[in-house]
């Protein structure tokens, strides 16, 4: 183990600590050691793990497909009902007059018949629930399976509804706009000369995309849903609506000014997700601090004894994000390679300690809510919380493996990346056990499929991230498009899908307006298929690119070989973007559309019918 840290110049104590930790994780030395011969790829734990997790997905999908296919075959082989009905009809039609007379005679021999008034008496029959008046004999065949309806929750404070709706609508605006930009920069990989405008060049638009979907879409959607959770779980009202609106304003202004600065060429220094200059980012940070005060005070005035597990994640996510922004932007230790240490820390913690933490907190509330049953284990949630804090905080440098940063710093990052298995497994288990036995519920819901996909990607994406951190896998995948695929699996497959699941759970309850189920389905499938068409080719292409570099092929070959994979990315991206337009319409449908008098008022309609 110690020989793997040959280049280290660290005190013995640190090495000893590391050795102990690595020992706990087991067969860690091949993970951390310097790569040996490139030929024994299949003995590398990183590669084996990555292949295993991808195979897991493929095999389970294949199994599912086989089971489904089996059912179809079974259905086809059993005699369909209408055939039997036909047989019966024919038998009746072929009865002889003598047989018919016999049947009629038996029928008349029965002494009494029910009149129909036995239970109701002479009174007028009200059909308040429309049980009878809504029965239809019009046998329409729906295009897709019909999902259960969601009804309005009458006890939500209208002010809270307004605030949350405003957050969700702003977030969705940034989602559509931000991914439109992302789609356009993706197209530029295929058609680099599509425009020659300074403000629309790839180098300037790329950070516009990433920052807009981070701070505009994801952060605002998270906060908006968070306000709902924190007030409901504390069984209290939100501490201050005014502060909620101020925070929304600040964050929106920061994204607007930040994006304009970036296209104008005012870039903080090029570090990923730190591209907004400090006067812009400080608006965002103040917005977060105000939101934190609001969340904290709401929890403080809760009328429940315990703090629900969701709020652990929400409060911690906010504190961590604020700490992170301050450390990321303070200049005192950021000259020379200091900048790089902070950059690795900042960009990874941004995803892990803010987006992932906060979103998981939301899932701890909305998953039980949409299943109408409690979370499987409170304790697992607590375990995941503390391990997330201890392990995730230390892994930023895994973005700079083999860089001039100190070897021990890289080793710690790799060790704890592997340690991330614990919170990930705890979280995934908790969610899946909560879902267990609710198969019918998932099939009948239009929000649960989003949550399910998000949870599955949470496992796959996180394991993938751990595997990518190993030294050997860095040879193949570092600097390639594989990273782009990974970041989209996490920020889109995990975070965006979970947020959509939460939004579709809660938004219809606000005003009792449901989105069109067909369009929710369209959103789901476009986003999922689009994401897969995006990440799978980039993972394949990224691998080929890395292998080409390892074989010392001319660099240009690695550009040329990516062409078809970049085209697939553009296609996948197009589907994803389309799904966002559909989602935006659905949100509008739920939150803004003028109410139409229709079956949402069953009492009135049933009265007029009678």
């Amino acid at each position, binding site marked *: 183990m110690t020989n793997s840290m040959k280049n280290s110049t660290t005190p013995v104590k640190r090495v000893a600590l590391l050795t102990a930790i690595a020992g706990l994780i087991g067969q860690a030395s091949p993970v951390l050691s310097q790569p*040996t011969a490139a030929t024994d790829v299949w003995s590398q734990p990183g590669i084996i793990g990555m292949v295993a997790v991808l195979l897991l997905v493929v095999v389970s999908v294949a199994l599912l497909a086989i089971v489904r296919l089996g059912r179809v075959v079974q259905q086809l082989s059993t005699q369909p009902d209408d055939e039997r009905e036909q047989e019966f009809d024919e038998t009746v039609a072929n009865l002889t007059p003598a047989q018919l007379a016999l049947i009629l005679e038996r029928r008349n021999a029965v002494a009494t018949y029910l009149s129909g008034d036995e239970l109701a008496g002479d009174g007028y029959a009200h059909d308040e629930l429309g049980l009878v008046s809504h029965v239809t004999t019009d046998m329409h065949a729906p295009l897709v399976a019909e999902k259960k309806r969601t009804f309005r929750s009458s006890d939500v404070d209208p002010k809270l509804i307004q605030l949350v709706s405003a957050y969700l609508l702003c977030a969705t605006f940034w989602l559509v706009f931000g991914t439109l930009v992302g789609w356009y920069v993706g197209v530029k990989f295929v058609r680099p*000369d599509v425009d020659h405008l300074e403000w629309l060049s790839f180098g300037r638009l790329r950070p516009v995309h990433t920052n807009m979907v981070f701070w505009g879409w994801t952060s605002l959607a998270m906060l908006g849903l968070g306000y709902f959770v924190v007030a409901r779980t504390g069984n209290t009202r939100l501490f201050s609506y005014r502060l909620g609106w101020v925070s929304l304003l600040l964050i929106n202004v920061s994204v607007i000014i930040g994006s304009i600065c970036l296209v104008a060429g005012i*870039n903080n*220094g090029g570090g990923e997700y*730190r591209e907004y200059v400090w006067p812009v980012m400080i608006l965002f940070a103040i917005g977060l601090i105000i939101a934190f005060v609001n969340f904290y005070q709401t929890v403080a005035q809760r009328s429940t004894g315990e703090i629900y597990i969701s709020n652990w994640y929400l409060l911690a996510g906010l504190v*961590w994000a604020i700490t992170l922004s301050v450390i990321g932007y303070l200049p005192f230790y950021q000259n020379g390679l200091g900048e790089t240490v902070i950059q690795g820390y900042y960009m990874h*913690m941004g995803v892990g300690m803010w987006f992932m933490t906060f979103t998981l907190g939301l899932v701890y509330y909305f998953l039980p809510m949409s299943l109408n049953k409690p979370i499987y284990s409170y304790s697992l949630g607590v375990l995941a919380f503390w391990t997330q804090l201890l392990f995730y905080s*230390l892994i930023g440098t895994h973005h700079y493996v083999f860089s*001039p940063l100190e070897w021990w710093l890289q080793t710690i990052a790799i060790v704890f990346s592997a340690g991330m298995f614990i919170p990930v497994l705890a979280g995934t288990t908790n969610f899946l056990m909560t879902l267990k036995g609710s198969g019918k519920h998932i099939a009948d819901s239009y929000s649960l499929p989003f949550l399910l996909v998000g949870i599955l990607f949470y496992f796959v994406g996180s394991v993938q991230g751990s595997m990518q951190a190993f030294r050997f896998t860095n040879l193949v995948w570092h*600097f390639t498009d594989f990273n782009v695929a990974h970041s989209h699996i996490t920020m889109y497959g995990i975070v965006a899908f979970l947020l959509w699941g939460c939004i579709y759970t809660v938004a219809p309850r606000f005003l009792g307006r449901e989105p069109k189920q067909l369009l929710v389905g369209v959103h789901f499938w476009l986003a999922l298929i689009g994401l897969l068409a995006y990440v799978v080719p980039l993972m394949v292409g990224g691998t080929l690119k890395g292998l080409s570099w390892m074989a010392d092929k001319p660099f240009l070959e690695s550009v040329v070989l990516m062409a078809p994979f970049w085209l697939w990315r553009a296609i996948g991206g197009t589907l994803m973007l389309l799904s966002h337009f559909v989602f935006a319409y659905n949100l509008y449908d739920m939150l803004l559309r003028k109410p139409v008098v229709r079956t949402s008022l069953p009492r009135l309609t049933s009265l007029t019918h009678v």
Partner: protein
Amino acid sequence: MFDFHKNHRLLVGTAGGIFLFLSLLIAVKPAYTVQENNAPLPGSLPANAEIRAGMNVFIEEGCVACHTQQVRNIDMDKMWGGRPGIPADYAWRQRIDNLRATPSTLGTERTGPDLTEIGERQPSETWHYLHLFNPRTVVKESIMPAHPWLFRSVASVGQYDNELTVSDEYRAGDRGHIVPTEKARQLVAYLVSLKQVDLPDGTTAPAFIEYKKAPPTVAANAPGPGAAAALPDGAALYTTHCQACHQANGEGLKGAFPPLKGSAVVNDANAELLAQIILQGYNAREEYAVMPAFGAKLSDSEIAAIATHERSSWGNKAAPLTADFVKKIRETIKTETTATTAR
């Protein structure tokens, strides 16, 4: 005592405190240490204001999104520099100004080539101007964005304006003389200044981690049997080192880089001059850009492979070169240079 589920102050305080402590331990302290313990290497500072301004243009245009500037200590990165990068290589980096932070030049994606040694690999300003104006003018397969706003079109052109020879295909109908703006000059000054500096005497560079077998040789490359059969892959080496200027079709670019197809020097039965130009570089012809020397970067057999590839492609039909021949030329040059310096 540990009633986190009931005491929100304790919960937030503990979670925040632990995170702050870990952050100081894993980020702030190492950052501070690496900042304090490394002084810039002699010669590694941006030498003048123009180069510094060029680096700002580099940041403005978001070049760091696709170009790394780090030679990792692994075998595959040998093509980007002579030694792995060390913290001192980056010690000169500081905040750009009060508004903007330290430039994040190490990068995290290598969609385009690493630029640690771009000034060494491609010293020609002419090439850089053409490449920035539209990368497709010099590298057909490139997907890098064009930067025409760093150039302007003028009616008449002065002696020092570095007019670009751009073919109609990339002019978008513009008939004027295309010259670089101030920003383009700064950016190119920055790019050609990028080189790994020598470590001071007594400092040993860290070693590359070797993880693979000896580089493969392409035996079928040479047309005839014998000595040339053991040369490395000349076509691949040509793509890496020569193609950006002389082009895949060997025709060069009019007004910028001379053709090799049908060239008298390339096809000469006596390949002495060809080998000499590759070893030493060339700057004798007014109408063409400077060619860098490859003597220090490539081995005798690699140069022989490239020359052999050039002499047998695009209709060229000259005899292959051997590594021994290149070695002989290299020694002759060395003797001559020593003689000149002695005199």
